[in-house]
């Protein structure tokens, strides 16, 4: 075998190894998984659109770190406040991102954090109010470099 063939063999093996690694990657969650996760939080209650504002860039170059913030329109008084803010993704390996629990002492209903995004998808924020109602907002995000599962180290 000349050196050229050996190189080709090596390339073939390397290709197989890469293919093998791809096979063990976990399946991404589906929008159905996300809805199931959402039902767990709401207990099947109605989730209405509005009052919540999810801010997230519409185009993300690097899915490893995407800053988002959720603001809820609420007076944050002792009797009318936001109890919790939940963030979900449709296509990360798991639908959950964060569950944040706040109360009237927060003064205003706003949280900021950073998430990973595995794929181009829709991100959802759900707010649970003290009167037991649920409100939501969602943003579609285009991700060019995905996070979570694509990178081998």
């Amino acid at each position, binding site marked *: 075998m000349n050196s050229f063939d050996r190189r080709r063999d090596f390339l073939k093996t390397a290709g197989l190894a890469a293919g093998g690694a791809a096979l063990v990657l976990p399946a991404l969650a589906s929008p159905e998984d996300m809805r199931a996760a959402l039902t767990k939080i709401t207990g099947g209650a109605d989730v209405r659109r509005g009052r919540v504002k999810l801010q997230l860039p519409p185009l993300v170059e690097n899915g490893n*770190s995407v800053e988002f913030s959720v603001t809820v329109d609420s007076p944050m008084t002792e009797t009318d406040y936001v109890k919790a803010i939940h963030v979900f993704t449709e296509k*990360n390996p798991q639908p959950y991102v*964060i569950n944040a629990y706040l109360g009237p002492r927060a003064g205003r209903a706003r949280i900021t954090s950073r998430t990973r995004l595995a794929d181009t998808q829709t991100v959802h924020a759900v707010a649970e109010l003290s009167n037991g109602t649920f409100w939501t907002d969602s943003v579609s995000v285009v991700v060019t470099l995905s996070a979570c599962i694509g*990178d081998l*180290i």
Partner: protein
Amino acid sequence: MADVMVSVPAQARRGEIIEIKALVRHPMENGFRHTQTGERIPRNIITNFVCRYDGVEIFRATLHPSITANPMLVFSTVATASGRIEFSWTGDNGFVVTQAASLRVI
């Protein structure tokens, strides 16, 4: 071991809403990645964050593998009285980190 950065204003007027930032150094290894030899890298994340103001819980969060490495959280509270604001992070493999800041209310 762990580096923590919290940002709380040194002083605030009574009733003012202050912004609190909390950041901790942590890999947030999500448990879905593999090494080049195909072994799964075990999950190692921070699962809980709690913030207390003079011993009373004012903010709590459950974090999931989707949260980035070195998780950052920004939230707010109403400055009610001078006191201590305590932060605590707990996670996989017995990870516990606490930090405190003091706030003067004028």
